[in-house]
């Protein structure tokens, strides 16, 4: 089977969109957020139109239906990620997922002088929580540098950084470079020295099937909105023994067993970390997204995206003044092409591309340490996903060439 991109595109109403200037939308901002197929939008509308109700303690039909759908979504999503529902904690996204590890695990298990290893290509979501802990309790934060020739992690430096580490936090796939890190090796080597490992899969999950149980990472952070799901939801997957080391983070209803004015007792396992009214519609929408994704072989999807990205990058390299950051030609690269033009400033270039209907992201991509390493303040980034086509890529390259001819 090969992917039928026309059929896939038909699932996404937004891809029919024309911009105010009449141009057809070409959406190349997928690393920021993906578009949503109609079935995801409909699943949420149906919830609100047919069985919206607060979940749990369900003693009426609607509450029962909502609870069943909510828990059904957890089953579906956790199984998509190759693990059991008990290992999954819903959060508002990857950012909250990482904060939950900081507040719920690290704050209890790390103390002054303990070492957390990060990399220079982390997203701010996987940097600032650790810097804050360093300010608050004095942990030591180490950054594994990147090799700016190959745009990959310096694995020799990684091994040195591992020395005495308690926690290693690495991004699965860089949102700027599209580079996929050797996370299997990172997990193995980190655990060999007794460190726990957090993998930020915000960009990884939309591009390959994450199998949490076989990956053996201690924590995996994921955002739904980057993988066809809605805004406002994500999760942290947590290995059983790591979860046992965790203490409550946010507290309130649902996560308790018994509350008295003298004190409270808490639920065990993942239930201890979910409080307040659940993100019911969001969970149902994400469940539908995962159901939609399940029809595809993610290796084929990856290949499709990788083909577009590597072709686009190779064409762009031939446009005078364009520099690519990253190596989209690599087989394991994931559809993000960061670039700059030597004279057309990135904000200007973004507006000019937008004028042609091309949506690309521009800025530091919440990865300023990586920008510093690359020696640039920002990049333009075209990022591709399952519904993008080679035709779109061709028209993009064409239009970019025109802009450069006209404005450089």
């Amino acid at each position, binding site marked *: 089977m090969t992917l039928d991109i026309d059929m896939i595109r038909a699932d996404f109403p937004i891809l029919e969109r024309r911009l105010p200037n009449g141009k057809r939308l070409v959406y190349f901002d997928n690393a920021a957020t993906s578009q949503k197929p109609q079935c995801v939008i409909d699943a949420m509308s149906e919830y609100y139109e047919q069985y919206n109700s607060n979940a749990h303690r369900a003693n009426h039909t609607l509450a*029962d239906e909502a*609870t069943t759908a909510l828990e059904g979504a957890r089953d579906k999503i956790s199984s998509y990620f190759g693990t059991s529902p008990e290992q999954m904690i819903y959060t508002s996204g990857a950012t909250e997922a990482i904060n939950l590890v900081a507040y719920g695990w690290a704050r209890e298990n790390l103390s002054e002088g303990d070492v957390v290893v990060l990399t220079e290509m982390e997203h701010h979501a996987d940097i600032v929580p650790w810097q804050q802990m360093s300010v608050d309790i004095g942990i030591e934060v180490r950054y594994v540098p990147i090799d700016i020739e190959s745009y990959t992690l310096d694995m020799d430096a990684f091994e040195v950084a591992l020395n005495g580490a308690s926690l290693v936090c690495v991004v699965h796939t860089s949102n700027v470079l599209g580079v996929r890190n050797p996370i299997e090796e990172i997990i193995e080597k980190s655990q060999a020295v007794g460190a726990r490992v957090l993998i930020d899969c915000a960009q990884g999950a939309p591009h390959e099937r994450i199998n949490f149980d076989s990956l053996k990472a201690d924590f995996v952070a994921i955002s739904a909105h980057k993988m066809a799901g809605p805004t406002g939801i994500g999760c942290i997957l947590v290995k059983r023994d790591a979860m046992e080391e965790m203490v409550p983070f946010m507290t309130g209803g649902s996560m308790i067993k018994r509350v008295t004015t003298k004190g409270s007792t808490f639920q065990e396992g993942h239930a201890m970390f979910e409080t307040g009214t659940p993100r019911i519609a969001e969970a149902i929408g994400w469940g539908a997204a995962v159901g939609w994704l399940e029809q595809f072989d993610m290796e084929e999807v990856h290949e499709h995206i990788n083909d577009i990205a590597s072709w686009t990058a190779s064409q762009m390299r031939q446009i005078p003044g364009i520099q690519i950051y990253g190596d989209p030609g690599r087989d394991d690269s994931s559809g993000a092409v960061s670039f700059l033009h030597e004279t057309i400033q990135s904000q200007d270039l973004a507006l000019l591309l937008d004028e042609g209907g091309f949506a690309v992201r521009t800025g530091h991509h919440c990865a300023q340490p990586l920008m510093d390493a690359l020696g640039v303040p920002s990049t333009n980034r075209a990022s591709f996903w399952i519904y993008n086509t080679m035709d779109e890529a061709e028209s993009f390259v064409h239009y970019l060439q025109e802009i450069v001819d006209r404005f450089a």
Partner: protein
Amino acid sequence: MGEVRLWPEHLDEVVEEFQACFDSMERYELLFEYAKRNPSPLPPEEWNDDNQVHGCQSRAHVTCFVDDQGGFQMRGGADAQIVQGLMSVTAMAVNGMSPQEVAIMEPDYAEAMGVQSSLTPSRANGFLNMFKRVREDASKLSG
């Protein structure tokens, strides 16, 4: 291959009585009645943390043992009459069976009784958790 029985023969009458109900309100009335007819009740004085069934929305308690004749026996109690009624029926079903039989039994009789609306996945917790607990105990007692 002989007929596959989904519940013990002596329960047929009970299941039929429920099936004969005019509507779910009548079935609930019948469950309320069965709640009073538990063949082996566990009185509230004997409810404790050990015999509590977890995951129920109301309180439910179960203890199981094997009698002199080697028959499985469950004693149960719940504060909700509907759960208590389902417990009575379950006790009627399993009491006297061999623990081995109980350990592999399925809760089909409850479905056949037509009490679905109290058995939807999230609400069924009361009954299903109770049933699972009985089966687990039976499994241990088979050992």
